[in-house]
């Protein structure tokens, strides 16, 4: 009973939190962008309706597609849920923090991406291949960039275990402000924009073949499959925002399971995520989508920033 309380319950709570929060954040971002464009925009709850609708709709499958096509949505969703169990949001240490560390998280994202890219090639449509090719190329730079960015935080804590990193950082707030840290943060921010398929790297809400990346891969998806893929990409956004906020500014995170602490932590987390979401929306609205072959330069910037952060950390010894 006790370990149900200490392990399973908090884990499930966190999972549910992310699951529930994800569409909302997207809704908020959408709304903000609409405002920037002087539009009314859909309500912030729109994504929930979409998901509910999609879950009930019938699925159209290409006759070319193989079992990879049918399994991938579940696999992607699963891996994202798994990540949701590993990334600290409200409370540290997480019950499952020993199961996987930051490298695991990144690799799990890679796993999802791997299969989505395969789906792009599975249906035999030119769009899919285009999307897969672009996605993997971009990933091949942002993935290392992300790792380096997080390693900077990791070495301060002397561990790649997320909970430990966060705990260490929150115990020494001074180190949040050191330059290496800030570099890493900006690196990770660019990574987030790219990973979650946002302007200036990708445009989530267009199907224009010249620009789209992520949408191109999942173009053949519909109904329930699409629902899960979309949902998991929304969760991905939340997770990244969580990483951004808690890896670098773990303010007000709950250090124990006491209700009060949890409330504070929850509030803090919500606030931080909202703020970051707003920032994302602002960036999206104030920037133009880059030409595809200018994107690598941007990503290289992220990579270099993170690398600098890491090396800087050593030179000045933090």
């Amino acid at each position, binding site marked *: 009973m006790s370990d149900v309380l200490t392990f399973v319950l908090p884990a499930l709570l966190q999972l549910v939190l992310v699951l529930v929060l994800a569409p909302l954040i997207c809704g908020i971002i959408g709304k903000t962008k609409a405002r920037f464009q002087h539009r009314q925009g859909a309500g912030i709850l729109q994504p929930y309706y979409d998901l509910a609708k999609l879950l009930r709709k019938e699925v159209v499958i*290409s*006759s070319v597609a193989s079992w*990879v096509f049918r399994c991938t949505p579940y696999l992607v969703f699963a891996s994202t849920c798994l990540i949701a169990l590993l990334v600290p949001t409200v409370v540290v240490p997480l019950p499952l923090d020993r199961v996987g560390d930051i490298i*695991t998280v990144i690799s799990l994202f890679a796993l999802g991406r791997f299969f989505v890219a395969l789906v792009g090639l599975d249906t*035999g*449509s030119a769009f899919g291949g285009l999307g897969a090719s672009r996605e993997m190329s971009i990933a091949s730079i942002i993935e290392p960039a992300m790792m380096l960015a997080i390693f900077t935080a990791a070495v301060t804590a002397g*561990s*790649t275990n997320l909970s430990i990193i966060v705990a260490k950082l929150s115990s020494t707030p001074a180190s949040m402000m050191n330059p290496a840290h800030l570099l890493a943060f900006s690196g990770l921010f660019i990574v987030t924009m790219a990973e979650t398929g946002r302007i200036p790297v990708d445009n989530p809400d267009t199907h224009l073949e010249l620009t789209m990346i992520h949408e191109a891969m999942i173009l053949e998806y519909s109904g329930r499959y699409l629902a899960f893929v979309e949902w998991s990409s929304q969760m991905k956004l939340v997770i990244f925002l969580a990483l951004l906020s808690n890896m670098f500014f773990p303010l007000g995170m709950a250090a124990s399971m006491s209700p009060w602490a949890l409330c504070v932590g929850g509030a803090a987390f919500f606030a931080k995520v909202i703020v970051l979401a707003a920032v994302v929306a602002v960036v999206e609205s104030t920037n133009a989508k880059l030409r595809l072959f200018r994107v690598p330069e941007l990503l290289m910037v992220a990579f270099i920033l993170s690398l600098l952060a890491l090396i800087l950390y050593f030179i000045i010894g933090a």
Partner: protein
Amino acid sequence: MHDLTDWRLAALTFMVTGYALGALLPALIGIMGRALVKSVVTLDSTIKNLGFTIALASSLAGCVLSLSVLLSGEPLYVEIQPSLPFGAMALHADMLSAFFLGVISLIAAAVSFYSLGYATGFLRRRNMALLVFLYNAFLLSMTGVVLSAHAFLFLFFWEAMSLSTYFLINYEHEDPAARRAGYLYVVMTHLGTALLVVMFVLLFSRTGSFSFGAFRDPGSRLPAVVQSVIFLCATIGFGVKAGIIPLHIWLPEAHPAAPSNISALMSGVMLKMGIYGMVRVYFDFLGPDIPEWWGILILIVAVTSSVLGVLYALTEHDLKRLLAFHSIENIGIILMGIGGALLFASLGNRPLASLALLAGLYHVLNHATFKGLLFLGAGSVLHATHTRNIEELGGLIKKMPWTAFFFLIGAVAISALPPLNGFVSEWLTFQALLLGFHISDLTVRIAIPLTVALLALTGALAAACFVKAFGITFLGLPRSDHAEGAHESSFSMIAAMGSLAVLCVVFGVAPSLVVSVLDPLVSSLPGVHASGQVLLGGGMMLIPQSDASSISPLALGGLLVAATLFPVAAGYLFGGRVRKRVVMTWGCGLEKIGPRMQYTATGFSKPIRMIFSNIYRATHEIEISEETSPYFRPNITYELRTESVFLKYLYEPAYHVIIGSARMVRRIQTGHIQTYLAYIFLTLVLLLLFAR
């Protein structure tokens, strides 16, 4: 304990004689049988079955032997007394040898079983007896390499290995490419061997003995300079075999040329002989006093090999060449572990060194399994479609589901994705390097982050490459009649691939098994002589060194499976069971999409080629034939070439220098008898002056 050694000896003898018999018996039958048996096919198939079954049996014996040593932890040492002028010789299976023996035997077992089916493709076409002979000789020589505890013996088996593979590469010698590959390979590896001879004889000249025991004992330490010379000889000599950049040029030629079961062995196992040699020399003979620059050098080599290896792989659309380049990449990753170990050892941080080495060795095992698996898969594809060019493939997942599935597992493993084995060993490598962050030494502080960054880059690129490899080959629509007419492989081939796939999973989710074996091995090496201090928590949890970071692949796997069921259930909950409608893929308004509308492998890697254009130095030409009208182009050919920097700026100049100077010298044979007499005359005069 005595009986233990007894039956281990039995296992050893069984294995060795088995390979020998497996080589000779079929050869004899092949020679004698021609007279007796009328039908060549029946004869050859008996030869095939006999040879590969024996190979299978003896490789299983090898597994048993290696396990018995690894688990009991006490080495096997067999003195032999050949009548050769090099003193007493010995075979030994200490932990290190046993580990590599295990790797060899494991893959050999799978491949032998695979070959039972695969080699049927050669019936009636090729000399089966020769194939079987060479195959067993190859395995025998490799086991000999790891088991020999004497320089002469080692070199003997080493060269035997090179020779047998040379003949195997030339097995289909009508193909000029195969001949070129074979020649390139044998010359490169011979140059390597020459350096190894220098190395061993240097060790000999100090100790006065050829036995590894003498090289090892601390009394016979050589001066630092000689140590470094030996180190360089070993690095180059073994590096050629391991295929490190820039000594790799033979590898992408040779592996595709050989029959696929052989390529699996070459790539999965033979490259590791180079690694074995390095570990043996660095940490067994030369340890423990190690200068810092050794580690740095190895790290540079490692990084170069891994990044360039994967980058070159990305542009390949010959499936086996692509895999060959990935071998280079993975050797690089292994060397990151070894280089890190050298670096940490030189700075006196033995536990960390041991951890790094452990990671490297773990990756040796993993690469052997998944690369073996992938090459076997490629073999099945080749067997079914008779082409290695993935631009002509596609849609095979329908035609050959099992092969596709196992190939996919291999692809996931090599892309270091959880929860399979590639992920675990790369994770350990990351951990070892990251823990090195706390060493306060400037070179380390520059070297480690760069290595980490590039390791991360390698992993990501590998994933991209295997999306291409698997996606283009197995998914979508068939791009040619080859792919149309494909069929699933025979049972033995599938079973072999399946077993390797299972290993990929097991070594992934149950790392504690491997680590608990590897840790005593590593700590037994004099160069390291410390435990990697990897705590093994519950649920197969790995906790290297401190209590800080950890993973539990088993739990990950379990959760992943559980979490996959969750959305299924959830979907069912919300929307009942899935209602499906199957239609053709949307073809942008055209009635139906054709295979030519799909993305090609070349197209797939285009963005990456652009990002790293200054490494590829790609040159492409577009040829448009306009005989009818500029608006209706009957055919447009697009040709793309990426040049190998090393070939152009290292090897070709060297070649030209050598051949040029040779041409110069050849002029001395003028054909004038007077010139010849003049040579004698001058020699005489010179000697007379010398004598005065």
